[in-house]
């Protein structure tokens, strides 16, 4: 099975959330999570392999712009046509996109990456509790899939 964490672009939020999933523990702290997301290529639509979870599922990150429904449906369709490795699960990160993260996206577009990172960190800190809770539920759901 493949798990795709998708957001408007591959940013700190996407990277941190996927890392939380890969290293999931109920008492995981934000300081224990890696932040090296800026080394990931930013081409929208490209699936970036991040790692394998404890159930041997491959975990990917994808930036998909604003057209999330179309891109996810297309990928599901390609998976149906070509894949030999079964199901594909999508995890939408847009519910966590708060004002700070949107502002960071804007600064990123202006090539002010340093400032964008600082604002992103603030945004991710604000959402971390909710992310950990939701990922916990998601983790259990994935665990129950045979």
């Amino acid at each position, binding site marked *: 099975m493949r798990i795709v964490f998708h957001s408007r672009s591959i940013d700190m939020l996407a990277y941190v959330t996927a890392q939380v999933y890969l290293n999931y523990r109920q008492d995981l702290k934000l300081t224990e999570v890696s932040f090296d997301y800026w080394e990931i290529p930013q081409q929208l639509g490209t*699936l970036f392999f991040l790692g394998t979870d404890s159930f041997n599922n491959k975990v990917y990150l*994808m930036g998909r712009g604003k057209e999330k*429904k*179309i*891109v996810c*449906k*297309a990928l599901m369709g390609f998976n149906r*046509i070509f894949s030999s*490795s079964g199901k594909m699960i999508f995890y939408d990160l847009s519910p966590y996109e708060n004002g700070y993260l949107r502002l960071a996206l804007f600064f990123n577009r202006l090539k002010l990456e340093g400032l964008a990172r600082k604002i992103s960190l603030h945004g991710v800190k604000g959402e971390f509790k909710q992310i950990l809770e939701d990922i916990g539920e998601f983790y259990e759901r994935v665990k129950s899939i045979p």
Partner: protein
Amino acid sequence: MVIIYYCFGGAHSSVLAAAIHTHMLSTDRIPKKDEIINLPHYDKTPSQMIGIPFCFGKDEFGNRVYILGTGKAKKIVINALKSFMEIEEINQDEVYLENTLKNVNLLVRIGGFLSRGLGLIFPGRILTVYGLQRAYPKFVQMVKRVKEEIAVA
């Protein structure tokens, strides 16, 4: 091999190209209005189905022909497909992608918008058919080229 004809909504030009490719429509004459309207998926793909590839049939070589609407996310969807092929280790020669929008004239665009975008099906559908009939030779040429390129591959 998989051949994917894609356009904006997956309802008109990609359907016509796939129908020519699978010999549902003749290449030596311009099809009549009813022949186009009665094609499977023609002017039927609702906007919420954009993005889903639909199997249209098989050609004479046994290749599967698909139609796909990419909406405003054309580049992203194509990137996603290429990236997916890479992770699945599918050879690039196994998939042929063709954008059918480049053969589309203004009549088809307006008709498609009226029918699919605004829900004005009757005038929209008539306009798309008329526009596609006018552009038909271009579509036949495109499909011929696609088949030649597939044969080489």
